[in-house]
């Protein structure tokens, strides 16, 4: 049914993973560079984000204006993000402009100017990002939850911290590029309308002589806090709850993901039904699986008025605990219908596919075709999901709340 996935690993380690989709007029690409915020030195949190910002300010023979102008003339819709493991650069445009766009991104990754005279402007951009989070309590509570759920440095926010950002100098940024912007561990996912052999040649020419370098090991430190309340003078109290989950590459991942789908996928899911529909406690309530390479987490969110926050927390938690008793067949059938539909619709977006390809390669060392994912989903049964839930019931929760008053939280009880 779906297109084959083609891949090629350059001798220097850069992996190209590509899915030609003939029905599309566009092509999209996602570069994952192993320059995530776990590589920020302890005193320089935010260095990866700052470096990403600076990398966009001119590269190769283009200054920062020409860089943006040329991408605009190619109609490239671009997006950058920093996660724990990677800095991601992605773009999408009409198919004929793909090679020219890739050439500009090769400059960005390999020959960024990192101009010293723009470092103060870049710093201001970073401060803005930090402040913007302060005005979005929903985002803030989830950032703090992730920080407390994962061992340091895996839960770090990519925005960094004010004090650290104040001290970062251009040499720190240049050093970060030298240490982390390298082909070993880097991935480029490409999807849409293109011819693979030509794409392979193009990537070879642009990146073949990019030199690999050594990677420093990450030192971890376990989190020590299970509940934290952040005082904030808001109408609503924001509630975040997290618990551990297997990572994407674990053979049990789809079972864990399926269980979270029953909890919070679609309007007939348990959280939406019990917290919003039956009790009218809140407008937004949801849970999602998040994965790192070696561990994962389920992150739940609910936001509600202060006087109903305790009830919202209690009802949400009761649903998480009820999941341990298992899911029912009708829930699994709806889940499968939603996933099947989402998989087919994913073929309609080159951007969605290119990022899925790169993500798969990072976690699995290969990419799954949509047909393969579809048959894995078909193979899910209530029995297999319930066996997983019995073995790994939601528990040992981490909580973060944000609002006027602290809530009563059953820390240490699952």
């Amino acid at each position, binding site marked *: 049914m779906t297109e084959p996935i083609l891949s090629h690993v350059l001798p220097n380690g850069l992996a190209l993973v590509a899915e030609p989709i003939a029905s599309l007029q566009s092509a999209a690409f996602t570069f994952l560079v192993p320059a995530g915020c776990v590589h920020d030195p302890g005193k320089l949190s935010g260095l990866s984000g700052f470096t990403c910002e600076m990398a966009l300010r001119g590269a190769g023979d283009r200054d920062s204006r020409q860089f943006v102008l040329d991408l605009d003339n190619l109609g490239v819709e671009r997006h950058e993000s920093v996660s724990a493991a990677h800095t991601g650069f992605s773009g999408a445009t009409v198919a004929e402009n793909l090679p020219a766009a890739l050439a500009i991104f090769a400059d960005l990754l390999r020959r960024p100017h990192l101009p010293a005279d723009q470092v103060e402007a870049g710093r201001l951009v970073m401060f803005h990002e930090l402040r913007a989070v302060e*005005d979005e309590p929903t985002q803030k509570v989830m950032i703090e939850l992730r920080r407390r759920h994962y061992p340091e440095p895996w839960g770090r926010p990519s925005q960094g911290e004010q004090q650290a950002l104040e001290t970062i100098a251009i040499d720190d940024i240049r050093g970060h590029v030298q240490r982390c912007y390298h082909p070993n561990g880097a991935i480029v996912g490409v999807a849409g309308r293109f011819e693979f052999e030509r794409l392979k040649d193009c990537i070879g020419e642009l990146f073949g002589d990019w030199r690999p370098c050594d990677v420093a090991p990450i030192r971890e430190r376990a989190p020590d806090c299970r509940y934290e309340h952040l005082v904030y003078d808001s109408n609503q109290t924001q509630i975040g709850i997290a618990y551990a989950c297997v990572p994407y590459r674990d053979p049990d991942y789809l079972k864990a993901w399926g269980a979270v789908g029953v909890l919070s996928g679609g*309007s007939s899911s348990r959280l*939406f*039904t019990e917290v919003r*529909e039956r009790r*009218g406690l809140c407008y937004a309530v949801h849970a999602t699986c998040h994965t790192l390479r070696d561990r994962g987490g389920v992150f739940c969110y609910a936001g509600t008025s202060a006087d109903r926050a305790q009830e919202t927390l209690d009802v949400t938690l009761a649903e998480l605990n009820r999941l341990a008793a298992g899911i029912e067949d009708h829930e699994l059938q709806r889940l499968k219908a939603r996933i099947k539909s989402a998989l087919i619709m994913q073929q309609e977006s080159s951007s969605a596919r290119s990022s899925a390809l790169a993500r798969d390669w990072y976690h699995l060392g290969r990419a799954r075709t949509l047909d393969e994912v579809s048959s894995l989903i078909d193979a899910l049964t209530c029995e297999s999901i319930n066996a997983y839930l019995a073995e790994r019931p939601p528990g040992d929760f981490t909580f973060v709340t944000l609002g006027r008053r602290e809530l009563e939280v059953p820390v240490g009880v699952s």
Partner: protein
Amino acid sequence: MEFRSHTLPNGLEIVAECNGEAHSTALGFFVKTGSRDENDATAGVSHFLEHMTFKGTPTRSADDVNREFDEMGAHYNAFTNEENTVYYAAVLPEFQDHAVELLADILRPSLRDDDFDMEKQVIIEEIHMYDDQPPFGADEKCRAAYFGSHPLGRSVLGTVQSITELSVEAMRDYFARRYSPGNVALAASGRVDFDGLVAAARRYCGRWQPCADSRRIEPAAPQAVFQAIHKEIATQEYALELAEGPAAGDDDRYAAKLLATVLGDDSGSRLYWELVDPGWAEQVSLNHCEYEGAGLMMTYVSCDPEQIAENLQRILDVYRRAEAEGITAAELKTAKSKIRSRIVLSSERPRGRLFTVGADWIYRREYRSVEEDLEKVADVTLDDVTAVLSKYPLRRSTTLAIGPLADVCPPR
């Protein structure tokens, strides 16, 4: 790609862009009603009613509605704005009939008292949520200042007070008037079985009783106001500026969109280089918004409170220069490349195309293919952009700032 249309005897219009190559089918009921059709006694009813449609019908409970959408694996939702309430679902082609049946059924909701009281709480939570996020809601306050007593100045969400005081009878009355089949269009895109779609609409909507109700289109009398709202918990300062722009029926809306891209796209525009690249603002943008009989050019900026006054001055200077000198041919060419690429990318998904096909129909009763849309963009000349700049001066605007500052100094 083929365009088809049909009208039922009760006035319901059906339009579709049929693409046999698509993987999915997108369907949407576009109801021509929104906050501009409300009054003080019904403030917020359009949006509240949108929530209530999902609470059940004479033959389905709310659980049934949610369950059936999920059983189809539908990607579905609804939204309400100043002049439309749209209910949509993207499904695999085999579910076309079931999706039309379900959407049609919820558009004749029971509006039960108990559900009304329960959902009121959810709406109030939604209002509280946005109130905690300063940039949200600022657009409604700015529109209110700009439009004054004109209906387009009304809030979509309403207030905690208006929602608390709203009665279910008032909602039922509003529903009966505004959800008349003549006021609704069913649009579809992607892999559509058009004959099946018309048959389904006839079967599931054919008995809807028409009711004569119309929207009064009064000319707007824009106000030039400068206002600062003090929001203590905010960290950044936000400002919105509204100036007049082409309405939904005006041909110069393409030139206005290109102008907005040149001056205020989120990257590579004049405002971007003046404010974002040097680090003076977190974000800045200029967008064109179209309504029936009115249009807006909307500027948005978020920044450190200390920078707001200077940023408003920088924005005004950019607009003054554009009005005095126009834009360059190179800028226009770049803007065309960006818009062309965006149209192509957003059109690849049937659910992206649905909103364009639906909006073209309800606003202009016309269909334009992606190619025709691209041609319209390509045909815009520098003279067209200059004409828009002189007809709709950007510097004559209403400004609303919201954030930790009690006072903001207006630009000169």
